[in-house]
């Protein structure tokens, strides 16, 4: 019985690792943040916890396979009140939707070390296609991906109801990321 449990756990672990997960994200050398305007005042926030399964070769971007998963409960907008508010139903509704995911459907080179990734970003159960631009640079033996993309918070029902007023909290959010990948694609 114990053996069977172990065996199925091992199988599940093997199955959970997608075949393309050749590179690993180095959390200590990565960052995921966003900026938006509140009463015209620029405000910054971050997510502390996220995982990624990536196979990205700067020489063959078309072959990229990548999924990212962000633990929305790890949000930090700079204060305990704001952090508590961001997890509530009107915002990320973390109790019902703990994670946001992004899957790269296509990646192409723009030239000059720049790339463009397209694919669905799912937040709060709502899927919207986004276009992220980033650069890829070697950093020692690692690969550093740096870039960002704009999104409209109301397309994901972030800040529903009384918060929908975009004069107070702007609709435009700029997401910025710095991902350090280690290993060969």
């Amino acid at each position, binding site marked *: 019985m114990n053996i069977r449990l172990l065996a199925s756990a091992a199988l599940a672990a093997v199955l959970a690792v997608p075949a393309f997960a050749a590179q690993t994200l180095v959390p200590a050398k990565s960052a995921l943040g966003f900026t938006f305007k509140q*009463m*015209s*005042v620029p405000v910054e926030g971050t997510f502390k916890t996220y995982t990624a399964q990536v196979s990205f070769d700067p020489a063959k971007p078309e072959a990229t396979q990548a999924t990212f998963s962000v633990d929305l409960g790890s949000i930090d907008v700079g204060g305990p009140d704001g952090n508590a508010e961001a997890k509530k139903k009107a915002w990320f509704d973390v109790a019902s939707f703990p994670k946001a995911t992004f899957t790269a459907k296509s990646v192409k080179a723009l030239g000059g070390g720049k790339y463009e990734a397209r694919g669905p970003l799912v937040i709060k159960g709502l899927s919207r296609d986004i276009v992220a631009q980033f650069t890829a640079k070697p950093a020692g033996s690692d690969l550093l991906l740096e870039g960002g993309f704009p999104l409209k918070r109301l397309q994901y029902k972030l800040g529903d109801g*009384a918060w929908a*007023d975009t004069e107070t909290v702007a609709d435009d959010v700029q997401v910025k990321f710095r991902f350090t990948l280690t290993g060969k694609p």
Partner: protein
Amino acid sequence: MSKTRYDGVQIAFHWLIALLIVAAFGLALYVDDLPLSALKFKLYAYHKWIGISVLALVVLRLVWRAWRGAPSALPGQPAWQVKAAAGIHHLLYLLMLALPLVGWLMSSAKGFPVVLFGVLQLPDLVSRNEALGHQLAELHEVLAYLLLAVVVLHVLAALKHHIIDRDDTLRRMLPGRG
């Protein structure tokens, strides 16, 4: 240049600034108790905009006062009263400058810069520092209540002049009858 009245500009400054201070104060007390909401963000921004306007107006008012002077004390008052009035006026000017300045410093320290009227971003006076932000918030509160106390004293004195002494003190700070 011995004037007997405050000039029109000084009178306008006095009452406009007094009005804005009362508005900033009332707004802060109301907003403090609101739950985190879009309305709270909005009203805090208004509080800051009003406060910074007070700072700017007080600077202009002092420039005007230095240039045009102020009427000397009404005759027939005991010397201690003249001194007390001058002292209170100095303290009022000091607090009218310090209170919004501390508010501005606090905003900088909290990493939440002031964007005046939603268009003009003011420079940060200090870099982000949460502990300092909290201390400045406490100082801001202490200075606000100190200003309230001094204003109450100032208003009581003005009313005493008007109702008990029946002199021209209040009238020379009121518009009209030159």
